[in-house]
């Protein structure tokens, strides 16, 4: 079955407006790995008949990496354009699978006039399960598996969301194992603050390698994340240890989608 992904423009043409906007983000739209996360989330939204839409080609970068790189002009230009579009569609609520988009839309748009209720996809999925709209199959997809969760900085420390992704992993037939540095003490994957888009400064190690060591120590079979950039960094980290065949890096949405047999 194909994915049902209405755009805001299509809905408006039909005189409808969705309950929630799915902000896909640049990674979720263009990065091959992150696109799989996007699709997993859409499958969940479709399964639960969530009344949502995307902006499609009208979506544009939130400006997060520009702002963190010190380029406030580019950030505010992006923010103002996005706010015009969001307000044009009278968007009230936004869900996103990218903690960077999540943080920017939630915390930095209000001062520029964009006021929306913004949630991270793990929070939405948690809500859907709690409301009984999404049931996980009793299959043995993750039976006996160990899963560790890598806290994205922009979800955890930046916005104090630690519980939602963990509660989802705990719903799986798997064991949640914590890394020695987790939650408020979680170590960054190395991508934040626009580092994703540049070479690291001279040092004695890459940050994602340091973080992957934390994950390997837990002997987890799966590294779960809630951020497309963390996903890339941890995947690259595993390659550094030639472990990419043994250990998977999966987004919490992907874990839930496969546990729900979607």
């Amino acid at each position, binding site marked *: 079955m194909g994915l049902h992904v209405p755009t805001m423009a299509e809905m408006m043409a039909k005189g409808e407006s969705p309950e929630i906007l799915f902000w896909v983000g*640049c990674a979720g739209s263009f990065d091959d790995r992150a696109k799989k996360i996007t699709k997993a989330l859409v499958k969940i939204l479709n399964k639960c008949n969530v009344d949502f839409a995307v902006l499609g080609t009208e*979506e544009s970068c939130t400006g997060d990496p520009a702002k963190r790189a*010190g380029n406030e002009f*580019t950030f505010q230009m992006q923010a103002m354009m996005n706010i015009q579009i969001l307000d044009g569609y009278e968007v009230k609520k936004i869900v996103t699978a990218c903690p960077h988009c999540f943080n920017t839309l*939630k915390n930095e748009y209000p001062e520029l006039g964009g006021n929306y209720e913004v949630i991270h996809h793990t929070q939405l999925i948690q809500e859907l399960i709690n409301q009984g709209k999404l049931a996980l199959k009793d299959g043995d997809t993750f039976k006996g598996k160990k899963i560790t969760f890598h806290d994205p*900085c922009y979800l955890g420390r*930046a916005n104090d969301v630690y519980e939602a992704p963990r509660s989802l992993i705990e719903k799986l037939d798997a064991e949640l194992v914590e890394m020695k540095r987790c939650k408020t*003490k979680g170590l960054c994957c190395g991508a934040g603050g626009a580092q994703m888009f540049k070479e690291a400064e001279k040092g004695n190690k890459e940050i994602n390698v340091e973080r992957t060591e934390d994950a390997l120590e837990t002997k987890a079979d799966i590294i779960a994340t809630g951020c497309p950039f963390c996903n890339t960094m941890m995947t690259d980290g595993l390659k550094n240890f030639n472990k990419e065949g043994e250990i998977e890096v999966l987004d919490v949405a992907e874990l839930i989608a496969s546990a729900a047999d979607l």
Partner: protein
Amino acid sequence: MISIALFALLFLVGWGFFGWNMLKIRSNILLGKEINRSDNRKERIRTTILIALGQKKMFTRPIPALLHLAIYSAFMITQIELIEIFVDGFTPEAHRIFRPPLGGFYTFMISFIEILTVFALIATIIFLSRRNLLKLPRLNMKEMKGWPKMDANMILFMEIILVTCIFMMNGADEVLYQQGLSHANDVLGQTGGSMNFTVSSFLGPLLFDGMEPATLHVIERIGWWGHIIMVFSFLNYLAYSKHLHIIFAFPNTYYSNLEKKGRLTNMESVTTEVKLMMDPTADPYATPPEGAAEPQRFGAKDATDLTWKNLLDSYSCTECGRCTSSCPANITGKLLSPRKIMMDTRDRIAEMGDNFRKHGKDYDDGKSLLGDYISEEEIWACTSCNACVQECPINIDPLSIIIDLRRYLVMEESKLPAELAGMATNIENNGAPWQFSPTDRLNWKDEV
């Protein structure tokens, strides 16, 4: 009378010099830019009680937290005894002036102080060992070489002297008391027995038994005067030391950022310009309205471009290095150390303040925080992960300084890593940090 005069002199000079230095630091901090941190009083008081008074964030590392708590609680409770010393110092022939009215409670109070003081002494010795023998990595990094290391050790040694004086004073007094020769006997007309202070009733006889009363009086006086002189020395040392945190931790926590850590400040000046750019009716050649403010520098090049809260942060930092030891860039060998950012900021604003006072407020020494203190390489290594902000036991925010320095480099000097310049161009042209066509944004929907 001579002793009262001496005491009064010590008191006046001690407080006076301290006050003068505090005013100087205050005026340095006020060189910073305005930021509103006076909203939400209730939440601020709550934060101060939990974080500063209650030391909540210290306890994520239990061992140093307990050791620090020993010194902290001894310091706090000793203030009660210090009040008595002040009153005694100004009252002729007075000695332990609170003892007669307080009675058994006085014995309890001094005993309590003595026990905490012993704990504090143990903690001080362990702290010295952690720094100098165990050489804990976070206490022995590059930026700690030289004065910062000596500063830390001096504080700990001063604490040992302080504790020694307290027990000289109480111990000798106890032995005199047992002989009926302490001034404390006279007040209540007692001729012997013990003052029953938990530690000194045992330690006094152990150290001083069999000594001449005259010697004991001298020891007691050395203890008393030594203690109060150390108190004033310590007080005046604060202005030159990281130890200032014992005072500044409280205002610094009160004025902390109550927003979500992920939220960076909005630059109002940019908002005005972006609004103009997006307004089709705006006249780009219009002269600015009468009385419009001088355009300010974007971001921060020097310490005075930072906010007063950044500067207060820098003076409050006690260089514990929790920030640096949790910084992903530092852990992986990069130059960035959030602690160094704070130390550099403090050293620079102190230098600027001195310069302005000496040479007038337009003086330019040709140096700046960015470049002469903090290098570009340091600030570009930051992942903005907020670990340093999270770790700081008194809510110091090194990240906001790093971002402001980046803002200056990018918006005033266009000096940034080439990849980041490319990223910004991509965002502006394609609406994404990579070179993808915006028309392809929804292609994922139909891809298998």
